[in-house]
């Protein structure tokens, strides 16, 4: 019975807990932490129960306060105007990422912020709000709600970036982030307005069923692409990424990675579900491909000379985002051509989507290791590090796992997804896959540099010990997932990636699931 309401519960638990945190705080730290974790675990649990339903039904439409999303006017015209959650394979896929990241981030925070005296209640409230924002964006079937959740996510993130407000740079980073978020949100709002003005609807499926790709729609499309790509941190709107990622506390950085992917998700939704085949797919595809290639290249070349370990990793985020854009872009570009789409477009998208989760995992892990180093050494400057491997072997091991994964070295999961991308993209244009491969090696080089200057070298003078247990646990959860993903990539692709791809590619299903229910 309760499972019917799973989508609502997934959001309700963290949301309610988030408001309850100040109260829970009174009962002591342990109690609060436990409750926060519990709420996230509940969410995860419901995500897990929701998944089989989605996989068997294709699309699930959940309407708040009603069984059907629409109201039927006396005239017989029906319109989905209630608040609906529309959950398909792609949403579930993203929900997995959101839950994993939130949970391990939370656990890690226990250790990481142990020494913080003030503001911890706020920290956990905001952290929960971030996951609420993510879940919301992922599940919602309604453009305006998506905007709302995006705002929730942005505000929570912004506050968390500025968590260490006593350090001047953090406020600067938070400010930058805020500006970017507001612009992106504004763009989105305008687009939503355009749609509403034209079609009198906010529901994605509803708009999709009516859209006719006129000039206004095109403007809305570009606004959405620009705004969401900006929030996802793709070149050339990536300048906020290094600051925000660099300054935020490590667990938040990891959450930000997932948050930017939520924006990416929204971008994909826009292209595939909202516009679908009505789009000039080749052109939009190419735009996305070019954005992707640029992000890949610019990100990695900016990363190589960095001295600040977190900034370096942040630039890699830009570059990794490029891979996802590349694969999806190729998929989009050949959507019109069923044969090409079947032979390689699909595979390219599989690669990209698979890369999303892989990336969330290994990038999260890397940021957490960077956080662990910062926690112990109080510096982010590579030149001031050295010999960490002597003192923090587990952290080193996690770093190596993450670095090899991001560099796409077999047999790690990063290779598996990049491999899908290379293997399909070359059919579209071999140069693209050549660039992808070269970027991969450049990534490797820059991580070898980090490995060398931070972890290797003579023993440190300071008597530094391994990071606290909670942090190790947070990292271990992700590392284990990475290893599982590395060992059984085919299984992962089959069970969670393929449904996501199919969901994206199959606009009709989505529309009919929502509209048909009316």
């Amino acid at each position: 019975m309760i499972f019917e309401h799973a989508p609502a519960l997934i959001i309700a638990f963290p949301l309610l807990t988030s408001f309850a945190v100040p109260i829970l705080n009174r009962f002591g730290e342990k109690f609060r932490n436990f409750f926060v974790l519990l709420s996230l675990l509940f969410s995860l649990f419901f995500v897990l129960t929701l998944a089989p339903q989605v996989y068997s039904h294709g699309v699930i439409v959940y309407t708040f306060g009603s069984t059907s999303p629409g109201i039927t006017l006396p005239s017989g015209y029906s319109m989905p105007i209630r608040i609906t959650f529309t959950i398909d394979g792609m949403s579930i896929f993203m929900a997995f990422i959101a839950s994993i990241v939130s949970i391990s981030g939370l656990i890690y925070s226990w250790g990481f912020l142990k020494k913080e005296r003030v503001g911890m209640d706020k920290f956990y409230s905001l952290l929960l709000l971030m996951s609420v924002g993510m879940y919301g964006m992922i599940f919602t079937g309604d453009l305006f709600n998506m905007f709302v959740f995006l705002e929730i996510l942005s505000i929570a993130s912004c506050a968390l970036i500025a968590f260490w407000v006593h350090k001047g740079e953090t406020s600067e980073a938070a400010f930058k982030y805020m500006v970017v978020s507001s612009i992106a949100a504004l763009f989105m709002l305008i687009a939503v307005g355009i749609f509403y003005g034209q079609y009198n609807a906010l529901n994605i499926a509803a708009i999709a069923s009516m859209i006719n790709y006129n000039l206004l729609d095109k403007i809305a499309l570009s606004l959405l692409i620009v705004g969401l790509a900006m929030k996802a941190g793709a070149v050339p709107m990536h300048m906020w990424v290094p600051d925000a990622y660099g300054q935020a506390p490590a667990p938040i950085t990891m959450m930000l990675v997932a948050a930017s992917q939520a924006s990416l998700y929204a971008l994909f939704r826009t292209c595939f579900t909202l516009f679908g085949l009505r789009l000039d797919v080749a052109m939009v595809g190419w735009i996305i491909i070019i954005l992707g290639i640029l992000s890949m290249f610019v990100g990695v070349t900016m990363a190589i000379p960095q001295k600040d370990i977190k900034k370096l990793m942040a630039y890699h985020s830009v570059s990794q985002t490029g891979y996802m854009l590349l694969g999806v872009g190729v998929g989009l570009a050949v959507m019109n051509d069923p044969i090409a789409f079947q032979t390689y477009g699909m595979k390219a998208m599989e690669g990209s989507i698979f890369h999303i989760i892989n990336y969330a995992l290994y990038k999260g892990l890397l940021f957490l290791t960077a956080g662990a180093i910062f926690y112990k050494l109080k510096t982010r400057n590579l030149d001031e590090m050295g010999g960490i491997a002597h003192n923090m072997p587990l952290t080193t091991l996690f770093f190596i796992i993450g670095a090899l994964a991001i560099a796409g070295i077999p047999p790690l999961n990063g290779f598996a997804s990049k491999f899908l991308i290379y293997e399909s993209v070359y059919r579209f244009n071999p140069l693209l896959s050549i660039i992808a491969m070269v970027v991969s090696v450049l990534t490797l080089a820059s991580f070898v540099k980090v490995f060398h200057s931070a972890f290797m070298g003579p023993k440190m003078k300071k008597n530094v010990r391994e990071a606290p247990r909670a942090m190790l646990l947070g990292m271990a959860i992700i590392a284990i997932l990475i290893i599982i993903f590395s060992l059984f990539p085919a299984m992962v692709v089959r069970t969670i990636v393929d449904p996501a791809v199919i969901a994206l590619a199959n606009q009709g299903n989505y529309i009919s699931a929502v509209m048909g229910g009316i």
Partner: protein
Amino acid sequence: METIMQIVFVPIGIASLGLILSLIFKGIDRRIAARFQARVGPPLVQPFRDIMKLMLKETIVPENCVRWVYESAPIIALVGSLMLLLYIPMGPFNAPLGNFGDLILVLYLFTIPSLAMVAGGFASGNPYATIGAQREMVMMMSYELPLAMLAAATAWKVTSFSIAKISSTVIWSTVGPLGLVGILLLLVVVLSVAPAELVKIPFDAPEAETEIAGGLLVDYSGRNLALFYLSDAVKSFAFASLIVALFFPFKLGTTIWGEFLWFLLKVLIVMIVSVTTVRVAAARLQIDNIAGYYWKPIALVSLAALALIAIDTAVVI
């Protein structure tokens, strides 16, 4: 039961066969190099003896190193190289993992031994090793572009990255005259990448004995050194086999063993041409010359090859 046999024994068999063959080939390589220098050279079994001896020697672990990285690097290097053998067909014998085998996978697998060496070099904490490791990285970055082009171009022609498929098509026959030139250029590219991939003169800057005293391997001794030595031998063999599989899959059409010998002969020739002769007839290049060499002329050549093949494909279709 049978599958267990296959899973356990076939790889072991292949690995040991590969090891033995690699070492013999290394012996031949040394012998021929010596003959180039008007010397008699060591007997063919010399590499075996070297390995034996190293295995028996004390293995010193320097005080300053990061022990677990330092000690696991050689093992990973060897395992990585042996893995390669499972993906590359040896003449008439299909690779046990050939079905999953894939050109890109193999090219990336080639980086594992090098990476292990880099990590080991860094871990040993010796300044020479550190410089060596940095050079190795630079080199890996330099020859990656031509290799990527090679992979893309071949796969484009054969429309698959699967090595099994590539090696069962004679690539030369799939193209017209322009493409032929393109493939020839590709062959040139891959032959010139070979010495770098295998860290041989003139591209042995990471191990330059006279500059950085053996570079990456300065601090390694005994068993660990032997493992690296083996992994180097296996890697050489695997790379030569890969070239044979890509470019010279010609069959004789005799018995299976005849076919196998024919394959070994091809590998030998490839090895002599791309490794032995080059290594005796050239001086060591500086690392930025190496980078320049791969980023400029070789990248251009491979681009040209790619273009030619593209034009050819367009014409044929």
